[in-house]
């Protein structure tokens, strides 16, 4: 039967090639589309979350909801060693995050102030890669690094001083004046508009939060799975602290991803719809071409179910071949665009930046996407092939032989 199916495939090379090509094209197109979508998100998450905020953060319970320094962690009385010693945790990075009103001349603007120690920070906040001018700071420095957007807003240069006014721990006034030591371009466009980085010690002093941190960012070892780690940390932590995953910290990102993915799914559905008709066309042609032969085979004693099986086998070989080829052919394309992302420009760039994302199109190389679309298109092909089965099951051998 397999031999007969195989030979039938090659009796009409044109039809077989059209079928295989249609499947290959559909798999490639669907995989590229989804790879870009998922790849862009993967990269965004890596850039924004992985390099800046961390996939996991430790907070004093209630801090994330209230965003108040009153819910900060006392580093002297809190023993974080049990958390740091969990396998997969590289280190815990203390940060003091708050808001402040900035003044320079007659200009004012609200800003996110982050007290950090660049030496121990995540890559995005180690500063040397993002500094446009000036220098980073060390633990004992008293300079600040501001984002490019803020520098442009205040029209300030290195050496200029910004005044800070805000609210510190337990309602204390938080004032400060710090010279600008560096200007940085943050990869996250939203942070690039409003971020002020200052030495953790200075931030603690200004906000009256000595030996306190609002956040302990969990730096994860390479290869560790943050979801698994999250569960382990939740068990290792104690009542006053809470472990939050980035999905809980930034639900808006998840919502945006879901909306974007839904849009992508509509495109892919349209593609599936088109490919269904292309494949149906080839199956209808095949059935019409071989109507007489089907009639002969049933007449001489071939059971309809056996004939249907042979015909299905032919289609399965063609569609599976196309799907496998498509999955393989698209792989180098995925790799290429993963390492050579497409730079967006113009309105598209602005639109993407509105969502606080880097305007570059990356692909993902996750094989699951190839596999998923390969399987979906294969299933569509098999479903469409049922037309041939239906035709065989209802054929009248006399009419078919005469056709």
């Amino acid at each position, binding site marked *: 039967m397999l031999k*007969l199916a195989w*030979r*039938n495939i*090659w*009796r009409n090379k044109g039809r077989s090639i059209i079928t295989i090509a249609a499947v290959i094209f559909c798999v490639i197109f669907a995989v590229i589309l989804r790879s870009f979508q998922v790849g862009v998100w993967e990269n965004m998450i890596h850039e924004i979350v992985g390099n800046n905020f961390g996939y996991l953060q430790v907070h004093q319970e209630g801090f994330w909801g209230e965003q108040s320094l009153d819910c900060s962690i006392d580093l002297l009385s809190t023993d974080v060693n049990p958390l740091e010693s969990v396998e997969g945790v590289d280190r815990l990075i203390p940060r003091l995050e708050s808001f402040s009103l900035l003044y320079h001349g007659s200009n004012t603007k609200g800003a996110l102030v982050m007290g950090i120690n660049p030496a121990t920070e995540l890559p995005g906040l180690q500063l040397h890669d993002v500094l446009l001018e000036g220098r980073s700071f060390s633990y004992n420095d008293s300079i600040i690094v501001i984002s490019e957007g803020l520098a442009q807003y205040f029209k300030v240069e290195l050496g200029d001083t910004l005044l800070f006014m805000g609210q510190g721990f337990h309602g204390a006034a938080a004032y400060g004046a710090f010279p600008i030591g560096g200007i940085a371009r943050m990869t996250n466009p939203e942070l690039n508009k409003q971020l002020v980085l200052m030495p953790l010690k200075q931030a603690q002093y200004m906000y009256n939060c000595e030996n306190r941190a609002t956040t302990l960012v969990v730096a994860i070892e390479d290869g560790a799975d943050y979801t698994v780690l999250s569960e382990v940390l939740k068990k290792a932590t104690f009542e006053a602290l809470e472990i939050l995953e980035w999905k809980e910290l930034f639900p808006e990102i998840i919502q945006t991803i879901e909306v974007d993915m839904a849009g992508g799914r509509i495109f892919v559905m349209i593609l599936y719809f088109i490919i269904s008709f292309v494949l149906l066309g080839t199956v209808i042609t095949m059935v019409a071409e071989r109507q*007489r*032969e089907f009639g*002969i*085979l*049933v*007449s*001489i*004693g*071939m*059971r*309809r179910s*056996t004939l249907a099986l042979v015909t299905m086998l032919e289609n399965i070989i063609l569609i599976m071949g196309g799907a496998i080829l498509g999955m393989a052919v698209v792989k180098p394309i995925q790799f290429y665009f993963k390492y050579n992302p497409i730079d967006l420009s113009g309105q598209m760039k602005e639109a993407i930046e509105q969502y606080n994302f880097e305007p570059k199109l990356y692909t993902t190389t996750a094989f699951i996407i190839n596999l998923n679309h390969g399987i979906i298109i294969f299933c569509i092909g098999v479903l469409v092939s049922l037309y041939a089965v239906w035709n065989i099951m209802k054929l009248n*051998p*006399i009419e078919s*032989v005469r056709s």
Partner: protein
Amino acid sequence: MSKAVIEVKGLHKIYEGAVPVKAVNGIDLVISEGEFTALKGPSGCGKTTLLNLLGGLDQPNSGSIIIDDTDITGLSDNELIDFRLHHIGFVFQAYNLIPVLSATENVSFIMLLQNRSKDERMERAHQLLEAVGLAGKEDKRPGELSGGQQQRVAVARALASKPKFVLADEPTANLDSESTSKLLEIMLQLNKQENMTFIFATHDNRVIAKAKRVVGISDGRIVSDTSK
């Protein structure tokens, strides 16, 4: 007296339509083992319909067709397919071989459906192809054979399953004189050697001349039945 292979009693087949057509109108017929019978008559007289009914390809409105003690009019679709596979050989007007299979494979295909061993299939296929004068053409596909040669492969295929009888619908309609006479010679030889029963639907006088029994049909009825 030879054993009856087919017994037809009171067979009727009416094609419904604006004007119902009585294609087979009360036929009684007995075909015995080893007969070489031609059903003759003008186009539309009902001979192909009768052949289709005998082959279980069509269902009568009434009457019975008993083959090998089985009334095939009461069989289900799958039972009929299996019955055809084991009891009936077919030769069609347009050869109707499987184009992607070689002559040997076309002949042995029906035995494959019967789940016969490869050795048995190959042996019988070669034997039959030799019998129909196609030794040396075993590996040729239908497209590489002439019309006459293809029809001989079709005859070999019809015999491959060792059927009770062979039904041939206008088997010489697409053949030239030389191919026709060669095909008839082969079929007569097989009829003689294997005592195979052949039933033709034809209006080809060359076939009718060679037939041992000629059944004349007109308007769905048997109007003459002569044996030589």
